[in-house]
């Protein structure tokens, strides 16, 4: 092989040839893939890979909000259905009140279901699955059964005062429902739906207020927020007994737990409730504290937050009740 031959071969496999081959390869792949089966709008894939299933379309529409609205009603109805007529969980003197609340919630659920249908959606007639999993079931279990022992903690007994916990939970649920409908107002695009939402929200707020009046016997502390009352009449602050904002309730009696030589740790303070807790409707989380304390005296604390992206009942969701 002489020098001329070598030079010629190098020219045939030069940089330009590699570009040429590469370009041809890409063009061929694109043409081949374009000729295959495809659906408009899908991202194309080159090569042989396993198929993927796409996530459902999760849009927050009026229908989504209305389905969520009816789901909240069913979640609350389910809680009340467990306690009404059960004297261990609910003082019988509140049976009529809770039964009235159930009737109201059924009416509200029907309203939202009808509105969902009118808006072109499929009515949601079940409870809110996310809320049930995260709030309702843990709270009810902690009140009625306590918590079993684990490798790192002792068993927690059922609530030391189930009736107290159920009323506080009911108050929390009603306040939360009212706040939820308030939170939907800026999200709903149709003004008439906002109005319907707040018609129900106002009713839930009244449910909560009436429960607070019954739960908290302090006056005016059970009626109005202490700070608001003092600010309203700074020259003449109320002279009646007013519950401080963190009244310690149900302090564990000595000897009820722990060793004989050590007093039982104090139980988590249960927040007091007020019929008119603030001047404006708050969208902040509502904290409830229920159940017996664990070995450290810590009760179950739960924040009830208005529904958001992870608890909306989207249009693709299928009811399971």
């Amino acid at each position, binding site marked *: 092989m002489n020098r001329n031959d070598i030079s010629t071969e190098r020219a045939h496999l030069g940089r330009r040839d590699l*570009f040429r081959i590469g370009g041809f390869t890409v063009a061929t792949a694109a043409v081949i893939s374009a000729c295959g089966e495809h659906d408009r709008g899908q991202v194309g894939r080159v090569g042989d890979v396993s198929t993927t299933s796409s996530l459902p379309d999760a849009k927050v529409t009026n229908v989504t909000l209305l389905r969520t609205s009816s789901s909240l009603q069913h979640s609350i109805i389910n809680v009340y259905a467990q306690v009404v007529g059960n004297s261990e969980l609910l003082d019988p003197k509140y049976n009529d009140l809770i039964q009235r609340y159930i009737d109201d919630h059924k009416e509200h659920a029907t309203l939202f279901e009808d509105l969902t249908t009118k808006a072109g959606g499929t009515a949601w007639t079940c409870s809110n699955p996310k809320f049930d999993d995260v709030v309702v079931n843990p709270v009810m279990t902690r009140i009625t059964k306590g918590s079993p022992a684990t490798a790192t903690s002792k068993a927690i007994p059922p609530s030391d005062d189930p009736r107290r916990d159920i009323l506080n939970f009911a108050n929390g649920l009603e306040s939360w429902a009212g706040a939820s409908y308030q939170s939907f107002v800026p999200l709903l695009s149709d003004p008439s739906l906002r109005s319907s939402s707040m018609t129900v929200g106002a009713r839930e707020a009244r449910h909560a207020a009436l429960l607070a009046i019954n739960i908290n016997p302090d006056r005016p502390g059970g009626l109005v927020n202490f700070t608001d009352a003092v600010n309203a009449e700074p020259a003449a602050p109320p002279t009646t007994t007013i519950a401080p904002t963190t009244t310690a309730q149900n302090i564990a009696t000595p000897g009820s737990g722990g060793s004989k030589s050590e007093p039982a740790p104090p139980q988590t303070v249960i927040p007091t409730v007020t019929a008119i807790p603030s001047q404006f409707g708050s969208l902040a989380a509502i904290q409830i504290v229920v159940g017996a304390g664990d070995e450290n005296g810590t009760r179950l604390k739960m924040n009830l937050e208005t529904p958001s992206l992870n608890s909306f009942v989207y249009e693709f969701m299928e009811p399971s009740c």
Partner: protein
Amino acid sequence: MSISKGFFVDKVVTEAAQPDGALRRRLLGIGLGGAAVSLLPFLAGRAGATTPGTAPTDSAAATTTTSAPPKRPTDDDVSLLGFAQSVEIAAFRLYEQALANDGFDDNDRAVLATIHDAHQAYASSLSGFLGRQAPNEVNPVYDDVKSSFTGDRSSVLDAAYQLESTAVATHTDILKQLQGTDGAGLLASILIVEARHGTVIAYLNGSTDLDELLVDPEADALTPADA
């Protein structure tokens, strides 16, 4: 190019060995590659994905989309919110009348003063929201019912109960017409607490009737046409 030296002559010969045909092929290759690259984005969009029947695409067309409503109040909203403000001004002035009574104990007074302050805060918040467009007027309902706020304890509480329900009904009615979400959100945060006011006032007045305590039925709404 010099051809005076043998080595370079060879090189020239080598290049000349692939004259027109090689150039054409090269240009063709470059052109094809360039075309392929330029077409890639287009082709990729419709390229042959083989995923069968799981496309998220056209189902979206059936979804009811929510068109974004305006945040700021429209001109009509300003009028409606101004009307709402007039109701709140009338309310706190009526509670001023009520608190001038001697017939209330400390407990009543603490509650009524708190509710008075709340209505004043509502009027202020609407004033702040509307800015210079706030009418800052007293709704005629003030003149209509002020005599009811100067009687005995029970009749004043009755009148207050009715006033709160009227305010809730009025604001709920206004919500049906408001386009802007900011104003709607503010009004919702007001009416949900006014709803609680009614229950507390009914309780203060000694009611044990559930319908009354839950303010069922609601009073009639005031409308700008009434003013």
